[in-house]
């Protein structure tokens, strides 16, 4: 029973990683792509690591998996924020629908 719940969590996590990767290709601007990376990919990682920690039971590697989960949940948005702040400080302009092209 626990195995089925754990596998369902991992499948949902892999679905979110797929959506995030597709968004990285299809979205038109750097700022929109950092949305896809900072939010959706972090959620996919949390779900996959949580599901695998549930599958491993109550052992030491499961506790370490929860540590990785906490680190990725805090660190991935922070890194994306640092990158986006560097882009804003360099006055990288945003995309608007009048431009029409895919990037910049």
């Amino acid at each position, binding site marked *: 029973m626990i195995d089925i719940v754990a596998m369902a969590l991992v499948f949902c996590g892999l679905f979110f990683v797929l959506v995030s990767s597709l968004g990285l290709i299809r979205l038109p601007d750097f700022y929109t792509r950092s949305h896809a990376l900072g939010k959706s990919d972090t959620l996919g990682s949390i779900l996959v690591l949580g599901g695998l920690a549930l599958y491993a039971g109550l052992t030491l590697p499961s506790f370490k998996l929860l540590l990785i989960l906490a680190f990725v949940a805090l660190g991935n948005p922070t890194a994306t924020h640092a990158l986006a702040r560097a882009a804003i400080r360099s006055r990288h302009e945003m995309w608007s629908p009048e431009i029409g092209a895919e990037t*910049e």
Partner: protein
Amino acid sequence: MTTLFLGMTLFLAFLTIVPVLRIVRGPTIYDRALGVGLIGTNTILLLVLIGFIYDRVDMFVDLAIAYAILNFVGIVVVAKYLERRQERS
């Protein structure tokens, strides 16, 4: 159960080719840094899944911890460098 893990690992491994497209094509350097971050996060998940396939979870989880820290520090260092370079020029 091992075949299920194997299927998920193969799926995730093929999904790691997608950010390489963004690294090659992305017009600015920020897009390329974003692609590198996504490859790093995918590698963390791949390491843990491979640990479950080979039934040596403890070793591969230690590798995943080290790689998670390296990935985070790498992106932050690149972002800080790009900020300073723009400030100087």
